[in-house]
């Protein structure tokens, strides 16, 4: 077996082990932290599809994260106040059911990513970075100035939404749910990466001219990747909102985009499990350094700088060697 495969399995086992230990030791806070790792990892896996496989440096993925969050917030708030979402042309009610909310989040995220991607992908390189950042910011300001769903103050949801057969309010059960979703997303992305589409996308990243020469359209490949990427990140946004039972414009902020990117980078760009390792490291750092000093972002910044300047393969690259899985 390759070192990376062993490392991936160890990562999953470690997440489960920490959660189970926290469950037996009655430490719900630790379970929440591990759940956060799983949710952030999903956001990172979404971005990694665009960034690692497609080479699209998107600094606006907070837009999709936030849209997932607000999909949950809006549907659940209508359900909780028993007011319909709209009455005309057809009656749409709010819902407290997670599968429905996830579906809405995924569709809304995909649609937004399709529009943002269609516009942004007309450009490349540094323009693309700045434009995705700007579009993310557009949603942020919109969320702040739109008072219907809490505006700047955000929107609390009193009871976590339900999933058939589970008690989602029990931390360990909600962790199990998020972990299962993360594994499903990992499987999906692994399948995408190995599919003809994934190979073409990887080719388009490495050399768009050649891909074009064999009759494929790089723009379309990138757009499809960006759309799927947005949908996955939106799903993680819905899960995150349910974890906190709270949505706020902060989910749209550009710092969120930066953090999602940090998960990918700390773990290793283009590695399937990179975002899982990165999110775990990020949460561990936040927990440990945050306990040491109020100003833990300084250390995070310094660490990120060191990783970028000296250890470009990220955590998985450091352990499993420099060979990159998708190249």
């Amino acid at each position, binding site marked *: 077996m390759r070192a990376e495969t062993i490392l991936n399995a160890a990562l999953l086992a470690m997440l489960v082990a920490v959660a189970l230990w926290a469950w037996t030791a009655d430490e719900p806070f630790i379970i929440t932290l591990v759940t956060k790792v799983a949710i952030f990892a999903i956001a990172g896996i979404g971005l990694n599809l665009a960034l690692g496989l497609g080479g699209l440096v998107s600094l606006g993925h907070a837009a999709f994260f936030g849209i997932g969050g607000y999909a949950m917030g809006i549907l659940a708030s209508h359900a909780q106040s028993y007011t319909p979402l709209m009455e005309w042309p057809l009656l749409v009610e709010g819902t407290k059911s997670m599968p429905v909310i996830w579906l809405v989040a995924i569709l809304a995220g995909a649609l937004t990513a399709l529009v943002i991607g269609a516009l942004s992908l007309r450009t490349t390189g*540094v323009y693309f*970075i*700045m434009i995705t950042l700007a579009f993310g910011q557009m949603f942020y300001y919109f969320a702040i*100035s739109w008072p219907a769903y809490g505006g700047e103050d955000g929107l609390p949801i009193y009871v976590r939404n339900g999933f058939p057969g589970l008690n989602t309010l029990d931390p360990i059960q909600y962790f199990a749910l998020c972990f299962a979703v993360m594994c499903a997303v990992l499987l999906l992305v692994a399948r995408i990466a190995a599919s003809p589409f994934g190979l073409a996308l990887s080719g388009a990243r490495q050399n768009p001219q050649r891909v074009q020469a064999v009759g494929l359209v790089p723009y379309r490949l990138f757009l499809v990747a960006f759309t799927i990427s947005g949908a996955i990140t939106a799903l993680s946004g819905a899960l995150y909102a349910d974890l906190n039972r709270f949505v706020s414009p902060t989910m749209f902020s550009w710092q969120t985009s930066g953090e999602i990117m940090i998960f990918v980078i700390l773990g290793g760009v283009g590695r399937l499990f990179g975002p899982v390792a990165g999110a775990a490291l990020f949460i561990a750092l936040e927990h440990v350094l945050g306990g040491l000093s109020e100003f833990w972002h*300084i250390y*995070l910044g310094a660490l*990120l700088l060191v990783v970028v300047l000296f250890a470009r393969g990220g955590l998985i690259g450091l352990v499993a060697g420099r060979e990159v899985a998708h190249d």
Partner: protein
Amino acid sequence: MSIVLLVEQVLNGLQFGVMLFLMAAGLTLIFGVMGLINLAHGSLYMVGAFAAAATAAATGSFLLALVASLVAAAAAGALVELTVIRRLYDRDHLDQVLATFALILIFSEGTRWVFGSFPLFLEVPDYLSGSVTLPGGIEYPLYRLTMILIGLAVAAGLFALIAHTRIGIRIRAGESDREMIGALGVNIARLYTLIFALGAALAGFAGALIGAIQSVQVGMGEPVLILAFVVIVIGGIGSIKGALVGAILVGLTDTLGGFLLPRLFTLFMDASSAMTMGSALAAMSIYLLMAGVLLFRPTGLFGGP
């Protein structure tokens, strides 16, 4: 809606625009010459504002505060260039984004550590406070008018620097062929440090000027940074002229959007929902402007192919 109010809003837009230009000019120069995307430019803006506020509190002189903002931001810029940025010129944009994002974290938390979380205040000096009467009987704050004039003067100075001086020739040469000017005996490393410090000084100066009408606080730089990105995307990356036109366009759109859109919506809906719709759309207006420009000119108004 009176015409006086409208002129006042146009002037506000212009004032916002020239300040954005000070930010965007540095960004676009740094990108044009070194090919570097610098997210930490907003931190240099913040450094300038904090240096000015601290100096004004210590000495009471606004002029000294402005000088301090220039010096502190240029020094911080040069230091960052020498230690971190120069390792990034040969890297791809992703590495540049991440490393400069890391610098933002360090700068922001470092400033919070030194100055605390509470905002500082920079007073407008007595000789610039109050308002002036413009032709047509329009009252306008003297300080904001001064900002417009200073901004336009700096823009003119920058154009002259780039068009007519030896350093300007080197900057333009560096944009078109960096190996060649290196071969001709120009010290490229020093030139890059100089350009970076110049861009930083402009950003810090803008921070100090704006700091006097807003509060000086950690995180003040990033919203402006993102607007400056919008500006240079609209104007075309690398073009100073594009930065000026883009900055004024964004400044006017932002200010007039917030002013006109709610009033426009009152024409066909009730007042409170018009206010809501109008301000929500106004918040998005500059991004819609950017999307519009990109549809027709993917490399911006003055950008090359």
